[in-house]
C-alpha cells in the first residue's frame, strides 16, 4: 500500500537528523500529519530551498547563500589574523566567546587519511592561496584536540612555515576529544586568549 510506504519513508528520512531515533521520528511524523500539515509543508519548502541555495563561501568555505560569506565580506575585520576551524559551528562558538576580529578558514572536516579525507578534500589549496596573499601574519590553529585535529593542525602549520607565517594554537583548556561548539564560553575564551606559539 503506497500510503503506508509514504509514512514509512517520512519516518526513515527523519532519522537522518541528529538525536532523532525511530521513536522520535515516528512522533514527529504523526505530529505533522495529524496536527500541523501547514508547518510541515513550510518545513519541506525551507529544507529544499536551503539545500538548493546554500553552498560554500569561495574564500573561507563556510556555508553561505552567496559567493562570499558575511564575515569574509566584512572589511572591518583584521586581515592579519586568520583562524582555522573544523566546522561552521566552531566559527559561531568563537564569535560568541572570544574577542576575535580576524577572518576564518573553515575546513568543513579534518584530515582523516583512513577515511579518505586528505588535503584535496579540505581544499587546503584555497587556504594556501590566502596565505600567499601575504596579509596574514598570524595563523591561529583552532582544530579540535583529537588525533585527526592535531594532525590537521600540524599539516597546516607546515603550509604556514613555507610562507614564513607565524602560527599559534589555541590553548588546551579544551578537553581532549571535546569539540569547540560544545565547550562553554569561558573555557573557549580562555583557550583562545591563551594561545601559544606552535
Amino acid at each position, binding site marked *: 500500500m503506497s500510503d503506508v510506504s509514504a509514512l514509512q519513508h517520512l519516518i526513515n528520512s527523519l532519522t537522518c537528523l541528529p538525536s532523532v531515533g525511530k521513536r522520535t521520528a515516528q512522533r514527529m511524523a504523526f505530529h505533522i500529519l495529524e496536527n500541523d500539515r501547514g508547518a510541515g509543508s513550510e518545513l519541506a519548502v525551507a529544507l529544499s530551498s536551503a539545500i538548493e541555495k546554500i553552498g560554500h563561501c569561495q574564500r573561507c568555505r563556510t556555508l553561505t547563500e552567496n559567493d562570499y560569506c558575511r564575515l569574509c565580506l566584512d572589511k572591518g575585520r583584521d586581515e592579519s589574523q586568520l583562524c582555522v576551524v573544523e566546522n561552521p559551528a566552531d566559527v559561531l562558538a568563537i564569535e560568541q566567546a572570544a574577542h576575535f576580529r580576524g577572518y576564518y578558514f573553515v575546513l568543513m572536516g579534518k584530515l582523516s587519511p*583512513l577515511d579518505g579525507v586528505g588535503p584535496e578534500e579540505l581544499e587546503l589549496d584555497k587556504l594556501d592561496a590566502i596565505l600567499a596573499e601575504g596579509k596574514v601574519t598570524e595563523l591561529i590553529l583552532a582544530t579540535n584536540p583529537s*588525533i585527526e585535529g592535531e594532525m590537521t593542525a600540524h599539516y597546516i602549520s607546515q603550509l604556514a612555515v613555507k610562507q614564513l607565517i607565524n602560527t599559534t594554537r589555541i590553548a588546551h583548556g579544551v578537553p581532549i576529544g*571535546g569539540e569547540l561548539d560544545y565547550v562553554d564560553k569561558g573555557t573557549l575564551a580562555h583557550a583562545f586568549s591563551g594561545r601559544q606559539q606552535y
Partner: protein
Amino acid sequence: MESAFILHRRPYHEHSVLVDLLTEHSGRITCIARVAKRKGKIMRGTIEPFRQLAIEWFGRGEVQTLRQVEERRHYAVPISQIARGLYFGELILKLLPKELAAPEVFTAYQQALFDLSSNHQALYLTETDLLASLGLDFVTPVTHKESVPINAQYHYQYTSDVGIELATHTTQGIRLSGQLLLNLYQKLLLDESQQKQYRQFLDHLINQQLGGRPLKTRKFAFEH
C-alpha cells in the same frame, strides 16, 4: 577485561562510534560503542588511537558491542608522528585477518607506540618488527631455503613462498642488498641511501601483499 588498542574509529549514528580494535588475546575486532560526554558512560575522548585500554565487549558476528572501556596508558605520540602511528595501525588493519588471536602483533604495536612516543630514531626497525609479527619476516642471517650465510656483496630477493634467496635477474622477487639485510639483522642504523632502498623494498613488499590495494595513510606518513 582485556587490553586493547584502537586502530580506527568513525562516527556511527549520533551517539555511537564504530571502532576497529586490536586486542591482546582475541585479535582484531570491530565494535560499536555508545559514547557520551558524561561520566559513567564510555567517554567519547577515550575512544582515540594511541591509548592502551582495558575493554569488555559482547555479542557475536562481524560487529560486536563495547560494554566498558578504561584507559590504562596514554602514549604521547608527538604530533609530527601521528600519521606514522596511523600508518602502523593501518598495516594491522590490512594485514591481520579479523578475530585471529595474535598476541605478538599486540606486543609489536605496543612497542611501536612506545618507539613513536620516545622519539625513536630508527622507525624503519620498528616497522620491520611489526611486519615480522604480521608474518612478513624477512630479516635473517642466512637464506631461508638453503641456509647459506648472507653475503654483504650479493643481492637477495624476497618472495612469500621461498623467503630470502639469492637474487637472479630472471626472477621477479623484491630485491635487497646483502649489506642492508645484515644491517637489519644486527639492528644497525641505516645510512640515507640504505634507508631509501629499504623504504622502496617495504613499499613494494606491502603493496604486493595487499594485491595493489593502496595504504591510505602511506602518503601522510612518509611524504609530509
